[in-house]
């Protein structure tokens, strides 16, 4: 974990405290706060969870329990470019597993991992609702639809360069 030492800016901390303040006392405040905290930091390191626990007056164990329950909350940082391959049923029957394989081969890391330079992270998701375009992959929010495995290297190439 040495390379993942947590470093936050003062602005990030100010944003987090403001968000905690806004939701404090609200019923079921933890989920919205975790969502916003992840937007601010990109992930939920132990340090951030501690601030949230103190701010909302909850045991740290409870915050950790919720943060680890939901697949969208991440306790480790993601790559600069986030690749997500839909493995929902509509995409799967149209061969999205082969798209994922092609990406893994191209970047030489497995689904759920970051490339060593932290440029890319690969994850799978279940249905973004673009079933009409199956199979799809999403890079930094942009949807690439009706894909074939052959098109993958060219798409990744665009992001390699910057």
């Amino acid at each position, binding site marked *: 974990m040495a390379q993942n030492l947590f470093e936050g800016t003062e602005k990030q901390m100010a944003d987090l405290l403001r968000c905690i303040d806004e939701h404090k006392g609200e*019923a*079921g*405040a*933890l*989920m*919205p706060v*975790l*969502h916003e905290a992840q937007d601010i930091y990109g992930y939920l390191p132990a340090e951030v969870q501690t601030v949230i626990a103190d701010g909302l007056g909850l045991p740290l164990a409870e915050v950790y*329990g*919720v943060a680890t*329950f*939901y*697949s*969208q*909350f991440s306790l480790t940082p993601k790559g600069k470019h986030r690749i997500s391959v839909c*493995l*929902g*049923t*509509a995409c*799967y*029957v*149209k061969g999205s597993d082969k798209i994922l394989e092609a990406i893994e081969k191209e970047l030489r890391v497995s689904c759920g991992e970051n490339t060593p330079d932290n440029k890319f992270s690969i994850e799978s*998701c*279940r*249905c*973004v*609702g*673009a*079933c*009409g*375009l*199956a199979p*799809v992959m999403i890079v930094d929010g942009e*949807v690439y*639809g009706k894909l074939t495995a052959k098109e993958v290297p060219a798409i990744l190439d665009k992001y390699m360069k910057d």
Partner: protein
Amino acid sequence: MTCEELKKISAEKADLINVRRIVREQAEKLAANTGYRKQVLVCGGTGCTSSNSLKVIQQLEESFKELGIDDVIIVKTGCFGLCALGPIMIVYPEGAFYSQMTPEHVKTVAEKHLIKGGEIVKELLYADTVHKDGSVIPFAEIPFYKHQMRIALRNCGVIAAESIEEAIAAGDYSALVKVLTEMTPDDVVAEIKASGLRGRGGAGFPTGLKWQFTKEAAGDVKYVCCNADEGDPGAFMDRSVLEGDPHTVLEAMTIAGYTVGANEGYIYVRAEYPIAVQRLNIAIKQAREYGLLGKNILGSGFDFDIHIRLGAGAFVCGEETALMASIEGKRGEPRPRPPFSAQCGLFKKPTVLNNVETWANIAPIILKGSKWFSSIGTEKSKGTKVFAVGGKIHNVGLVEVPMGTPLKTIIYDIGGGIPGGKRFKAAQTGGPSGGCIPATHIDIAMDFDNLVAIGSMMGSGGLIVMDEETCMVDIAKFYLEFTADESCGKCAPCRIGTKRLLDLLTKITEGKGEPEDLDKIMKLAKHMKSSSLCALGQSAPNPILSAMEHFGDEYMKHIYAKQCPSGVCKSLLNYYIDADKCRGCTLCKRNCPANAISGDVKSPHVIDKTKCIKCGQCIAHCRFGAINKK
């Protein structure tokens, strides 16, 4: 706002919406009243946005500026249903249906059609809307739309999804007016009960009863919840309603609040649906501004407000007790029932929870009456059902049909059949909790009870079509991977059962299956069904059981003959080189990572099966199509 002010907005804008709803000749006359010569509707749903519909809107705006067009309105709507052909653009009053639009196409349409005295650009229309003799067929009459009946989706793709005034003009909130001014809570319960509406989220529980139980439950504080955690992969009905007509959900929840005696509501929506979340936020803000949410709604003295809570990627949160735990800010784990939500739900208060599509049916029932609604559908399944049709089918998209519509009609008439002339093998409904409908049952009338009778279920409405290239063992394994991954782990039957079922299926797909594995699956499935805490575990074995029932021979072939008839399960395939086609170019030999291919230059090569790792590299590199697998 008062009821009169609401009616005024509705009357002022009525013609604007009507132009989009009636036949061409009348629409052309009406258009004169609207102040707009033409209206261009562009789909801004997730499907079309993903295929770049926002660029279509941008190009329209630019072209209008260049050409000096200032009497044509651009309307960003929700989903038209035909997602495979996106981005879609419809021009009224003609009802011209343009599909797969690029900015270049838009330019052409603007220059040739949208300018004064312009004509429809037939080459760019969706091919099915052009008759052989060159005449344009109104899109409502093409097979995809002709067999549909839109109740829940009535406003989707018709109104600007971010405009409350268009929603009001299209009829939203008039049911709320009727309820607040003419009906008692008991009248509402009676009307919903008489309509026969059943929950569209999967289980099909009568909605009216749910409301009655919550209404009769003791307590001052009660809640209304909307389940928009559409987790079934391949299903996007609820998302489309939220993106296309968010106000109908707010209106229906307010009606339920009045009926059961609640003043607060929560919508639990997937964070994976950013457009739906954004439209909901806009809709709630507008409704508050117009006094349709908040204190003293429409001068009735009734207070009601709605909050949004985002999910965070847990399938189990579609289960009602887990969903409520998640809104409370806890881990989304289900709890045993009873007590039921109607007595002890969100924050331990009586709560009525319905799914998005169910909410979308409420206003039409109030306005048109339970008699009208119950005249549609089958004996025990009233009204319509929205299906998200996907997989191996031409017209991937969103379809709303009366309950009882034959599967055949959905797949062939509406869906346009299977691409590539392939054979229909099965359709999967109910997602990871459901089962498959084999080709022998293609005439089945789709309703709640018929589907259960053949071992599947309605589920929320995902309908995935599979052709002969889909392996039924592999697809069952796919669903088990999903449920094993999504099991929350609270109860042992589900946590361990899903994992063990997955192990057994993996074994079979790897060619290591033994005859007794089938008995083990049956036994395990029985225990999981009877002893899991919630529906996730109880229904997790369904995809396997139904596949074993209808495609037992496929399982046998995997186990006894070590063959995968559909050519999907890698470990069961053998690669071989066709000596007649092989030119001996050595490309496959050089690219084989396992050194399994041998042969001299310019003479046919052979694959050593004992060395082959079945990676498929040889097929990918062969230029002569000489390598096959079976």
